[in-house]
């Protein structure tokens, strides 16, 4: 997960206990090495995805079928019935990765041009993990209204839209408005992908520690895109709103906080959650909120020490700690466990229990595209989270394994099928099939890109990494 970002005003919090020196140091040098290599490879490959024909071209004569004059008949067919675009073109499997570049990774508002490499990377992930054709589309707009308008205008080319790296709270308005107006699924990964992955991990962590959601007291640190969506989904799943405490850099978010009028005007999503939870009956600081809590879900500042071990110690017995800031978690897992945490999750792949939205978005899009769903309501997001949790659970969960790793991708088609089935159940699917049929379709479509990439590499059409020795196994 790369989406937990520092809040706008970043306060430096003194460290509770200094992070293990070698961890911080090796982390820094590792990040520097990765950055340098990424830059070198970007220079070499100049882009990460390209358009590849999916039809035979035996000679130029075939273009009279793929293009004019033959293609006019296809256009006429779609003119008669626009829904046929999903059968006669690639629309069924093509999405836009749309951004205004207003909040890219932890880099902030770097604009659409600088966002392009990130959108290309996301498009590659969509294809490789989900079998989804994704078009990187950073656009130059200065208001949420203009972004909405742009999305509405490009929609005829796409079967879905993935919104990416849009600043909060504009991202809520853009998502809500597009979900209302467009007949295709619209998703904002920074909200929904992160929230769904968090939810999936939490479901299993609760099961491991013998808790039910209805009797759980939860603190959410950070009130940005991801945590506001997580809070909404938790309540929807049955969490008592009055046992839910959101904390931001002004402390506990409650109904009588001084800045609430401003929030009503500028961020009605946060305002609504403030009224609905009213601080979960708490007031004051993070430390006060955490006392006696069962769960903390932190998606805030990437500074270890933001969550202190003594606060973890003040939680209920066997607490659950998700420290999801990237690249540095709010508390080091070892510190959290030493303070009594029963289950610890982070956003990083080098610790156990990575809460990673790459576990979610490929499956959700595979599912909604296969069912040709009209939208992605919260029920579908929850279905994806529950299925991901269930798949992990049937394989056996432990404190160190509440979510699949990226090496356990055989669960992906199951999640996609659950999504598609959920769309059918909700009556928003335009393709009806059984869960087994959806599963088979997803499995086939999700397996193809890896085979394709491998074939391209094997044939030499995709260059091997220029900075690695050529593998000896294929001597010419």
């Amino acid at each position: 997960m790369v989406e937990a970002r520092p809040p706008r005003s970043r306060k430096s919090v003194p460290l509770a206990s200094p992070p293990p020196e070698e961890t911080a140091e090796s982390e820094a040098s590792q990040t520097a090495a990765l950055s340098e290599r990424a830059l070198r490879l970007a220079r070499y490959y100049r882009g990460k995805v390209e358009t590849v024909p999916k039809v035979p071209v035996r000679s130029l004569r075939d273009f009279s079928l793929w293009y004019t004059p033959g293609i006019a008949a296809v256009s006429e067919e779609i003119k008669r019935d626009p829904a046929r675009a999903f059968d006669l073109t690639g629309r069924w499997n093509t999405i836009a990765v749309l951004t205004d570049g207003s909040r890219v990774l932890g880099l902030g508002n770097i604009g659409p041009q600088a966002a392009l490499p990130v959108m290309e990377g996301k498009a590659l992930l969509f294809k490789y993990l989900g079998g989804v054709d994704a078009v990187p589309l950073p656009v130059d707009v200065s208001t949420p209204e203009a972004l909405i308008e742009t999305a509405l205008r490009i929609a005829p080319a796409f079967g879905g839209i993935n919104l990416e790296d849009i600043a909060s709270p504009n991202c809520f308005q853009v998502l809500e408005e597009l979900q209302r107006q467009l007949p295709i699924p619209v998703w904002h990964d920074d909200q929904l992908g992160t929230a769904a992955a968090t939810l999936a991990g939490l479901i299993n962590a609760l099961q491991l520690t013998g808790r039910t959601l209805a009797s759980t007291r939860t603190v959410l640190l950070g009130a940005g895109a991801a945590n506001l969506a997580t809070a909404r989904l938790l309540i929807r799943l049955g969490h008592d709103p009055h046992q839910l405490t959101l904390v931001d850099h002004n402390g506990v978010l409650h109904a009588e906080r001084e800045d609430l009028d401003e929030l009503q005007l500028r961020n009605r999503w946060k305002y609504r959650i403030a009224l609905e939870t009213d601080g979960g009956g708490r007031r004051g600081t993070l430390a006060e909120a955490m006392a006696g809590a069962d769960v903390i879900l932190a998606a805030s500042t990437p500074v270890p020490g933001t969550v202190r071990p003594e606060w973890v110690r003040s939680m209920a017995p066997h607490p659950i700690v998700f420290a999801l800031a990237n690249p540095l978690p709010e508390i080091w897992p070892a510190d959290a466990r030493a303070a009594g945490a029963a289950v610890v999750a982070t956003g990083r792949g080098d610790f156990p229990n990575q809460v990673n939205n790459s576990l979610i978005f490929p499956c959700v899009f595979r599912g909604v595209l296969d069912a040709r769903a009209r939208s992605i309501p919260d029920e579908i997001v929850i279905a994806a989270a529950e299925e991901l949790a269930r798949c992990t659970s049937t394989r056996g969960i432990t404190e160190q394994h509440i979510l699949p790793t990226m090496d356990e991708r055989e669960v992906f088609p199951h999640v996609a099928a659950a999504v598609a089935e959920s769309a059918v159940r909700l009556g928003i699917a335009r393709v009806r099939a059984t869960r087994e049929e959806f599963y088979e379709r997803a499995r086939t479509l999700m397996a193809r890109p890896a085979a394709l990439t491998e074939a391209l590499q094997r044939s030499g059409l995709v260059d091997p990494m220029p900075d690695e020795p050529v593998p000896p196994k294929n001597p010419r």
Partner: protein
Amino acid sequence: MKRTNPSGTESRPDSRAQRAPIHARPAQESDLPALIPLIVRLKRLNEEFDPMLKVRPDVEAQAESVLRAELKNPKSLVIAAEGTGPDKDKVIGVLRAAIRERPFYMPEAEGVILDIYLLPLYRRHGAGQYMVEHAIALLKERGAGIVTVEFPAQNEIAGRFYATLGFRPITSHHARIL
């Protein structure tokens, strides 16, 4: 922000925290500690709408002296709103109004609603309407033949709210910083 409902007790399918009917009564001096922060919140909200409504640094002291004077002034009206149920006796809102003379127009006595503020949790469910109608009844008792209300021109929520109560713009108040 505020819904129209005569009873002030309409139940909407929101969370239970939002089902918060209120009760209005004349404010007293003992309410001042609770009323002052509410007035200050309102003034800060007004500043959000327009930098020309920038709040003075001594706003708390000003709110106190204005409210103190108004509590003694027969031409002024200060109403305190209380919660009900567990929030009974908790002041959760305020309304300031005054009787003004109209030297050139009829009706001659005008009731002016100057400020109204309810804590966010107690909005909607007709609470705002209940407060305004309560104030109008008292202003009428004191001879007002017309009622007016002042709020920042940018506050469209207030504009819509008063429109539903039958108010329409009558004069415009324009400003320029010197």
